[in-house]
């Protein structure tokens, strides 16, 4: 399960490699319950965490969902976009 809070526990090399951010952007069309459901399915998050990120998307315009390697970030973006969410991967500056 991706979790940006778990980063300290990963080895330094993996930490360096995890240079891609998976971000979900707000849009006015996806239903809030749907977004929560998608986060639960894609990331395996409990409902409270999924709702927290959904509200962050809604209120702040975006939410950082994961910091990952290129391949994993790409995999998550494919899944999220398959559900119709506005999600992208961005290089961590």
């Amino acid at each position, binding site marked *: 399960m991706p979790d940006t809070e778990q980063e300290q526990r990963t080895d330094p090399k993996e930490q360096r490699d995890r240079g891609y951010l998976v971000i979900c952007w707000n849009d006015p069309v996806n239903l809030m*319950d749907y977004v929560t459901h998608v986060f639960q399915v894609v990331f395996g998050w409990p409902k409270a965490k999924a709702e927290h990120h959904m509200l962050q998307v809604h209120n702040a315009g975006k939410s950082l969902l994961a910091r990952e390697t290129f391949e994993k970030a790409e995999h998550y973006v*494919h899944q999220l976009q398959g559900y119709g969410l506005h999600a992208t*991967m961005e290089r961590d500056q």
Partner: protein
Amino acid sequence: MKFVPDAKANDAGGAPLVFQMNQVEKAFLLATLQLFPVLEDSHHHLSQDPGATGPADQRLLQQAMARQRQQYRAKLDDFFRAQRRFFTNAQEGVQLALTAEQLEWLLQILNDIRVGSWVQLGCPEIDSFRRSGLTPAQTRAVAAMDMSGYFQAALLEAVK
């Protein structure tokens, strides 16, 4: 349409998730689903920064989305062919029985229709969107967006 949490599976074809609807809702659901796919493959972008990913990665995303739409269209065709497997007549109206997996792809299909219709309308703010003076095509897109949202909300009741 509403989720019936305590429906017995055997009453509706053995699938665990049962939804009650009337004949009009069933007709609207089938008409809405027939619109799939609505969202264009070109809608998908891997990154906001073109330098963060390559053209091959972008192509891969659009190909994956196109493949998924083909797979869902095939599932939907099966759904339409085998309606008796999914719908059973109830005392009042019709019951739709779905497995968790079927509910998942129906949600995704409905969301494709909702988001695709919204894109066709020019990605407006929903709350401030003026619904007067629309062209026939825009009126159809608004109806598709609203209907797909209505059925999505009903399906989501089952996963809450």
